[in-house]
């Protein structure tokens, strides 16, 4: 953050400010001339897209908070008042509700890109781990936010998910009571969830700052996964990537607003337009779509784990499910330390590539299974895919560490960009540099 050897600005006002607080020098260093690999493809847009979504969510969210009433008797009505009587309230709310979904779409693609090109590997381990922290915070914020409209799915989703913590031995029930602020999901729960839903986005913002800071220390990874060796491999961030990111953001926004304006409720659940009723349980309680893979992992554990040939249960099915669900994210967190293969990018790791695409398919299947009742074929699908999910991290990656051949990498980004053969062979390699 220090200015180091500061270059003078021509504009006297800018110079006056910058000599006292070098914000202009900082911006120029980090976003102006910042050396960026010149072979990014469009998957590298999703960091900027996620940032735009975070800002969109904060702006629409604060506006909604001006009209929302966090009380069990008024929450649902106040949301309907926003929809019907507040000027353009429907637009703000639909942008916020669909914004959550599109934030997750951006983040999931961003995570996939990091995994595919090995962006989590040395020296970017902490950058990746901060990203997983952001993802966890995002999930917490989204879950809490879905409770606020106080519809049927809000209420019953909150009941089911907060109840999970009761599976923790000894302290579980106390934690649940603390979350609820009482002995069931009720007004104190809604009040604290509202407070937390207002707080957490700013915590996310702070961790995003650390995430970007760490990124600007190590520099960006790139589709080849080899470090830039000099100026011939990089471009200044502005204008090359500012303009490319703006284009990517706009394309993403087109799809997002198409949902917000033309299919605003397709990603939600109709039951959430029924006011919460503690006496009526919905036929199927399902979380928002972006949680379905994790919900499927949670429900895939249908058996107690104990000492064989005795009646002693060590881990109940419920605790097993909770451990599996949080474990699935914990594995993402420690991924940099599991994957020790020297090659970063899946472009040069054909075995890893297949395993990763299988993981993507397993996650989609988990998502589909999570939306269905946990019975019959879908239970087996979720169990099979959960085993693959854990197997990917705990068996396949260690296996690949040892046995996947180390391919010869191109000498530099610049050489690779000029070499048509590499481009032709490279999956997902679409650097647009001629």
């Amino acid at each position: 953050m220090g200015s180091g050897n500061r270059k003078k600005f021509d504009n006297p006002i800018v110079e006056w400010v910058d000599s006292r607080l070098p914000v202009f020098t900082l911006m120029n260093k980090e976003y102006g001339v910042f050396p960026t690999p010149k072979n990014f493809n469009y998957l590298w847009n999703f960091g900027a897209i996620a940032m735009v979504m975070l800002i969109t969510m904060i702006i629409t969210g604060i506006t909604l908070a001006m009209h929302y009433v966090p009380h069990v008797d008024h929450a649902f009505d106040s949301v309907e008042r926003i929809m019907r009587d507040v000027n353009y309230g429907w637009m703000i709310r639909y942008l916020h509700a669909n914004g959550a979904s599109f934030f997750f779409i951006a983040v999931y693609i961003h995570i996939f890109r990091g995994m595919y090109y090995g962006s989590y590997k040395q020296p970017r381990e902490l950058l990746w781990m901060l990203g997983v922290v952001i993802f966890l915070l995002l999930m917490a914020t989204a879950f809490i936010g879905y409770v606020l409209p106080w519809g049927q799915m809000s209420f019953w989703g909150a009941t089911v998910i907060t109840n999970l913590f009761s599976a923790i031995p000894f302290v579980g029930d106390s934690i649940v009571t603390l979350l609820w602020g009482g002995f069931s999901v009720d007004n104190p729960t809604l009040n604290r969830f509202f407070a937390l839903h207002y707080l957490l986005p700013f915590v996310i913002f702070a961790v995003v700052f650390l995430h970007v800071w760490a990124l600007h220390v190590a520099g960006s990874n790139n589709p080849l996964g080899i470090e830039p060796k000099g100026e011939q491999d990089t471009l200044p961030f502005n204008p090359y990537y500012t303009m490319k990111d703006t284009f990517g953001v706009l394309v993403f926004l087109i799809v997002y607003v198409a949902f917000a304006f033309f299919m605003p409720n397709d990603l939600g659940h109709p039951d959430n337009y029924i006011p919460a009723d503690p006496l009526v349980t919905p036929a199927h309680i399902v979380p928002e779509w972006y949680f379905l893979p994790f919900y499927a992992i949670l429900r895939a554990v249908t058996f107690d784990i104990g000492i064989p040939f005795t009646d002693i249960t060590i881990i109940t099915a419920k605790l097993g499910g909770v451990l599996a669900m949080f474990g699935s994210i914990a594995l993402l967190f420690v991924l940099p330390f599991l994957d020790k293969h020297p090659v970063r990018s899946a472009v040069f790791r054909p075995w890893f590539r297949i395993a990763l695409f299988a993981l993507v398919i397993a996650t989609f299947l988990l998502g589909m299974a999570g939306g269905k009742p946990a019975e019959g074929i879908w239970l087996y699908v979720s169990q099979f895919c959960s085993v693959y999910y854990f197997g990917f991290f705990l068996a396949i990656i260690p296996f690949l560490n040892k046995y996947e051949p180390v391919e010869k990498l191109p000498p530099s980004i610049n050489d690779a960009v000029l070499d048509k053969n590499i481009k032709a062979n490279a999956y997902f390699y679409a650097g647009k540099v001629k």
Partner: protein
Amino acid sequence: MKKILLFTLLGLVAVTPAYAAGDAPVPPHQDWSFNGYNGTFDKGSLQRGYQVYKQVCSACHGMKRISFRNLAALGYSEEEVKALAAEYTVMDGPNDEGEMFERPARPSDAFPSPYPNDETARYANNGALPPDLSLIVKARPHGADYIYGLLTGYEEHHGEEELPAGQYWNKYMAGHKIAMAPPLSDDMVPYEDETVTTTEQYSKDVTSFLAWAAEPELEERKRIGVKVILFLIAFAGVMLAVKRKIWASMH
């Protein structure tokens, strides 16, 4: 470009099966005037639907999130809205003497509900609670298609077990058992225009009316949405050209 769209679409595949609809069949898709990217409400149909709601549904179902002033969106003038509101009586007060009193409704009043509370409603309806209809189209899978299907889906009892007293067989109700007696029949509401007075037509009109009640912003939303998308496409086009021009010099 293509990849971004592909990933986005893939991301949405997991979304669609998020809810199961019990054992009821999917109601057939109807050709609503408010479908599509530029759909609008048919005001004539909304007015007839309001008439059906007023004369039939409102006996048991409230619509508490709608105010009489909202009826202007159906094409009624200010005077007509005042007259429509005045047909209802609402409880107001307390007055200067501390008494509650009844007065004719004003445009600013919400529709009065038929029962003072849910308990009264259940007691009067064999234990079943007639839901408030303000949001019913958004609160059911398949929305307007489902409401239309339900209103026209009464059939002779198909099941093996006897239906309990006060239950009716409906093709599109989850579980097929519904506590609402068939509410509509041919010629029960006289229309002022030439429109046919069949159960299907009543169902169509009242469903349109309920769709409007659930999403009164629909027309404006779609109108603004088209402009927003056109703007973003143009902006994205400009940015694509800018990006290409900048990157073209990178030889």
